[in-house]
């Protein structure tokens, strides 16, 4: 156990300290930072000339910056008169300017600009001046309070959201995330695992190690190390994602978007931590074991990608099958493959999301998967020494046959 832990620690540290791992983990963050930086700089450059100047021509102008900003319109009141605003518009410092005056109890608003106001801006301005016009109209009509009450009566409008469909869409998004995350991990780590083992196999270091411990214990340490690296990778993304959302929620430009989608994000995160995640974790373990076996069958590191083909084919079957059949949880193939190890990690989450699987069926599938993992771990662990210590290039099947017969 102690030696297995030494192997785990050594392999784990070596992998996470490697440039390939650092690049792999940091690349999405670098991309995110670059994209956010570009958006920020663009927003900063365009923030001035996106503003609309509000010119108060009269003392009691219905338009003021406070009310307009409340309507979500980006305005500035730093230009005191039309000529100053005109100059600013000419120099492209502002998008346009807005003036309002009242003539014969009618509010007249004028917008002069380099581009059209969009509908929400028009709506916002209308809301403000509409209320002001209404006050002027009531004053002029001389109606009493009762009549005023009758005239200002508003229709009732209620909105009811059906929770079930909302929850279902959250689950679908969660499943998609799980399937994509699993596909990404498997395609990335299957080749890394096979490559790592194949390169070790080509060297005599394994003979030295196996003179210190049993090959099966080394194999367990190796698999655990790969698994810990994957977990570290995911944990970094999880923490990174959480920091991003926290920062975004405090950023002026992104806060409204985060606020709008917060229930959806919360729902997805909640769903990610469910039994579907268990299938993904177990799926990653079983595919890692298979990749390790594939790596142990070739004699040169260059052949590792060739050896991982069985893993890749199974991954493709699971991934594309799950993508195309995610809307058909009762399909016969989905039902069958949700019990078959290697594909159950892709197909069972579909059935779980749609609620078409009973707790018993879920348990049976999990038990089959766990038992397969245990059997594979024990069997491959037993023949691992025989596979790794032979260095002749005899092909995959002959290599497997020899490995089995050596032990």
């Amino acid at each position, binding site marked *: 156990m*102690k*030696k297995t832990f*030494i*192997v785990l620690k*050594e392999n784990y540290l*070596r992998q996470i300290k*490697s440039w390939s791992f650092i690049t792999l983990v940091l690349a999405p963050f670098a991309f995110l930072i670059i994209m956010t930086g570009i958006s920020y700089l663009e927003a900063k450059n365009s923030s001035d000339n996106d503003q609309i100047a509000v010119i108060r021509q009269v003392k009691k102008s219905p338009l003021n910056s406070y009310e307009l900003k409340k309507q979500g319109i980006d305005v500035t009141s730093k230009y005191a008169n039309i000529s100053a605003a005109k100059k600013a518009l000419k120099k492209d410092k502002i998008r346009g300017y807005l003036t309002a005056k009242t003539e014969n109890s009618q509010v007249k608003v004028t917008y002069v600009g380099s581009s059209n106001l969009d509908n929400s801006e028009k709506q916002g301005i209308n809301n403000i001046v509409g209320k002001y016009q209404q006050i002027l109209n009531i004053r002029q009509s001389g109606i009493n309070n009762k009549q005023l009450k009758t005239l200002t009566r508003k229709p009732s409008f209620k909105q009811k959201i059906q929770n079930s469909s909302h929850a279902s869409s959250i689950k679908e998004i969660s499943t998609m995330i799980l399937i994509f995350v699993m596909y990404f991990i498997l395609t990335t780590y299957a080749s890394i695992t096979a490559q790592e083992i194949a390169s070790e196999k080509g*060297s*005599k*270091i394994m*003979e*030295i*190690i*196996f*003179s*210190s*411990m*049993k090959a099966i214990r080394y194999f367990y340490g190796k698999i655990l190390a790969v698994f810990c690296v994957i977990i570290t990778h995911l944990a970094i993304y999880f923490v990174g994602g959480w920091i991003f959302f926290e920062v975004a929620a405090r950023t002026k430009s992104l806060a409204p978007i985060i606020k709008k989608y917060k229930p959806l994000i919360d729902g997805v995160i909640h769903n990610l931590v469910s039994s579907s995640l268990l299938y993904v974790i177990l799926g990653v373990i079983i595919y890692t074991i298979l990749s390790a076996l594939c790596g142990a069958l070739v004699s040169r590191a260059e052949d590792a990608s060739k050896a991982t083909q069985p893993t890749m084919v199974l991954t493709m079957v699971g991934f594309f099958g799950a993508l195309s059949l995610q809307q058909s949880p009762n399909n016969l193939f989905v039902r069958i493959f949700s019990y078959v190890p290697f594909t159950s990690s892709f197909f069972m989450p579909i059935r779980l999301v749609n609620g078409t699987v009973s707790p018993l069926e879920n348990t049976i599938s999990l038990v089959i998967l766990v038992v397969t993992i245990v059997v594979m771990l024990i069997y491959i662990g037993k023949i691992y*020494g*025989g596979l790794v*210590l032979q260095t002749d290039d005899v092909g995959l099947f002959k290599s497997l046959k020899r490995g089995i*017969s*050596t*032990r």
Partner: protein
Amino acid sequence: MLKIDHLSKSFGAKKVLSDVNFKVPNGKILGIIGKNGAGKTTTFHSILNFITFTGTILWNGEPLTEKDYDQIGYLPEERSLIQKLTVKEQVRYLANLKNMSTKEIYQKLPVWMDKLKVKGNLNDKISSLSKGNQQKIQLICTLIHQPSLIILDEPFSGLDPINVDILRNTILEEKKRGAAIIFSDHDMNNVESLCDSIVLLKDGHAVINGNLHDVRSSFGNTNIFVETKLAISRLKELPHVLSVIEEKDGLYKLIISDEKYGPEIFDQLTHGQYIKVFAQQPPTLTDIFKKEA
């Protein structure tokens, strides 16, 4: 003591080892010699339990178990270390696997680096070291935990004469410490200068097995070294001489059919006169190897 009885191993239909027997007491060195493919590495792999075999391998009277692994120091035929690691990390990893504490490793490592005259620092990457120095680091990994059973598969290959001497002295120190040592080598001079006993493997069979002195003596004193002004053609004409090899100017090695003809040849060469060199000796290990392997 390591004791091997009736060790046999086949790969498919091919028999690689056949009824091999030997023992290595503590504080003794056994040399396993033989041509390439004779079964030397397979013997080592059997002792280390890398492969299945028939027969018995006993260490101090008991079959080797996992707990005995900590007492073994093994240097494989080809040198191989993890190139990305530093010297310190590499030795720590392999010595940790021998149940040695990191503290003890860091105390002993500089001593060993000094002893084997490794040119490099503890924090140097393995990849930055020369081949010879990498080989020394691998030897440190083999010996730092003071194993009781040391298995060295061709430890001298690729070393220059100075490093051969360093390694030879190190092996002798380990012997003095009380370790049972087995090693294989193609240079018979190394085997002859280090070993107490030898096993010569031929196609998986131990054709020679025993104390080095006894083995050499069993072939009789059939080598005659003589320094003479006589021509090589004249020496070849002498009775009972099978072959003549000129060792250096004027010094010849005569191989005779039986040691009993030594005095007769001496008489013929001297005719009662003074001769500078005449020595009758058993064959060297190289001669035995060439004849038997």
